[in-house]
């Protein structure tokens, strides 16, 4: 059993004292920041990324992954307790979770979320371990033309999944790709769009983009309507679900896990789609659909499981193809690169201990989350009482310090302000920020592979349609684009999303 050998290698890496310790620290920090309202996983990871740069690569990635799913999980706690979801995937949890909390059943809601997340995390980790190696070996056969088409495909699928109009999402992606061209050209070394500023030769740092778009812009949104937050955080009692609850959550957890594991692989927002879909499915097949929206525990267990399973499987495209499925994974790419590892199909062979250690650590992290969250719920509840007036200066300050510490480059800090304002205005105009970040991270890959493919084919663009892998991906991308633009399908999609609101 090769899988077992690999997992054994993984666990022997992940169970090293310092790795368990930093996994714990990551999960703890992630949960702590994720619980804070108004800050989602992307901003959390971007803010805490610099902390990990002095570590060993494995340890750093384990900790970052821990921060990610910790933040994801912390967001659900906030959604349940005070109805302020940190990001869109937790918005579904807020529907029934917060309703349960108002009925005095916050405990069972939190427990359902925790148990669901744990089960989902465990299953999805196994799925990741099983699916990654074959995919990576396929990816090794990819040439530059295939990679170009793959990246294009990934970018276009991410529009089909995003909310908002396809036209705007497409423009945001293209804008991201465009901004990614700032800095020295890889082939000729010509500095592009740098305004004679030597500090810009290395390009715009992706952390600045992420912190600006997801941190500063979000804070400005929150400062639009300042109200003293009604901090009625209900006391959490009776954590353990009743026998009836336990019976009701089993099937939703399993269905959510399956949905999430499958949809998480998709680029763009698989985890959001997964939790929405899971909610819709549970509502449709429930014998008591009228309870949904009024505190149905299935409406917490299903989406939470889906969300968490998707969070784990979204590592599959990252670890096998080097493609980020969503903004946090884009930040993970940056983390790999900082440690001198190019994410992609070679990681599994070149760095087996890192690859399997990271996967094994996800399971350990899920155990830690379970141990951490239920007993410490009182602590998290107390964190919710931190007033926003303290919180947002902290986010901005830490973002500035963290970004500066990456390269000691003042332009990285200026870029935060630039992207904060740009992101804020564009978000207000109905453009989602995630596609811009994905385009920004993938843009250089797109350009490099396009140019390399054309060099190899001696300038013949037909190479993109004559290579079977590339052609297939381009056809799929075209299908995805048509699906995203077709009005009837968009309407139906709007219905799926609207139904939950």
């Amino acid at each position: 059993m090769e899988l077992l050998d690999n997992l054994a290698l993984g666990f022997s890496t992940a169970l090293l004292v310092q790795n368990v310790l930093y996994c714990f620290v990551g999960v703890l920090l992630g949960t702590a920041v994720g619980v804070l309202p108004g800050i989602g996983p992307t901003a959390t990871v971007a803010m805490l990324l610099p902390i990990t740069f002095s570590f060993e690569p494995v340890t750093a990635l384990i900790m970052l992954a821990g921060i990610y799913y910790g933040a994801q999980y912390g967001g659900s706690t906030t959604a349940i307790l005070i109805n302020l979801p940190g990001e869109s995937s937790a918005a579904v949890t807020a529907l029934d979770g917060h309703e349960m909390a108002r009925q005095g059943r916050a405990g069972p809601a939190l427990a359902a979320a925790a148990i669901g997340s744990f089960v989902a995390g465990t299953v999805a980790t196994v799925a990741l371990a099983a699916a990654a190696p074959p995919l990576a070996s396929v990816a090794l056969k990819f040439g530059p033309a295939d990679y170009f088409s793959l990246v294009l495909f990934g970018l276009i699928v991410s529009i089909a999944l995003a909310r908002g109009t396809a036209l705007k999402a497409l423009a945001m992606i293209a804008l991201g790709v465009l901004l990614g061209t700032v800095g020295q050209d890889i082939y000729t070394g010509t500095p592009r769009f740098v305004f004679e500023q030597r500090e810009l030769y290395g390009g715009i740092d992706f952390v600045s983009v992420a912190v600006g778009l997801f941190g500063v812009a979000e804070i400005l949104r929150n400062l639009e309507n300042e109200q003293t937050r009604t901090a009625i955080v209900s006391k959490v009692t009776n954590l353990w679900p009743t026998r009836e609850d336990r019976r009701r959550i089993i099937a939703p957890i399993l269905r959510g896990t399956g949905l999430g594991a499958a949809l998480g692989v998709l680029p763009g927002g698989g985890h959001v789609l997964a939790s929405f879909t899971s909610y819709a499915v549970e509502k449709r097949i429930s014998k008591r659909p009228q309870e949904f929206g009024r505190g149905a525990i299935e409406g917490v267990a299903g989406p939470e499981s889906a969300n968490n399973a998707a969070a784990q499987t979204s590592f599959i495209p990252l670890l096998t193809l080097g493609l980020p499925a969503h903004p946090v994974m884009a930040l993970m790419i940056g983390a790999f690169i900082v440690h001198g590892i190019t994410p992609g199909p070679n990681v599994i062979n070149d760095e087996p201990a890192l690859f399997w250690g990271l996967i094994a650590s996800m399971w350990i992290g899920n155990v830690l989350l379970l141990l951490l969250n239920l007993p410490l719920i009182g602590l998290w509840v107390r964190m919710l009482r931190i007033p926003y007036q303290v919180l947002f200066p902290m986010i901005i300050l830490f973002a500035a310090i963290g970004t500066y510490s990456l390269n000691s480059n003042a332009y990285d800090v200026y870029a935060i302000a630039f992207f904060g304002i740009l992101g804020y205005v564009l978000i207000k105009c109905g453009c989602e920020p995630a596609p811009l970040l994905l385009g920004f991270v993938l843009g250089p890959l797109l350009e490099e592979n396009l140019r390399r493919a054309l060099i190899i084919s001696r300038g013949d663009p037909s190479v993109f349609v004559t290579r079977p892998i590339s052609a297939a991906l381009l056809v799929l991308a075209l299908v995805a684009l048509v699906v995203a633009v077709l009005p009837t399908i968009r309407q139906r999609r709007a219905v799926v999303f609207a139904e939950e609101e």
Partner: protein
Amino acid sequence: MERRRSFPDVLAGGIFVLIGGAFVVGALGYELGTPTRMGPGAFPLLVGAAVVALGLAIAGKGLIAGEVISFGPIPWRAVAVIVLAVLFFGFTIRRLGFVPTTAVTALLTTLASARVRLLTAVAVAAGLTVASTLIFVVGLQLRIPLWGPWLGL
């Protein structure tokens, strides 16, 4: 969905056209090369043109059948103060050193909220300065001097 002229859509389109256009103009200043050996200007030119085209489409659609109807309020004070704080941080971190820069940045950002009282702001800024010094300089050992050359120390 109501369909009518939408200012935010036109604005978004305008931003795309502006940025895309700037990149197109910039890209024309670099060597374009041939398809076989694309120069540094070719790719930005293509993508910039795409951004302009998409921006025009968004603005055009916004004039006839927009989707975002209201833009909502803008917290001008927060926008100004936060931008100022971040720029201040970037500009002075090397010159003033970690502690003064952090303190001023924290104080400025705290003032972004229209509801904050000065005393609270000072207290929050002081607390954040101590906390971030402990976390980043003592804990994580960032190599940023605590006090910079501008202070003549």
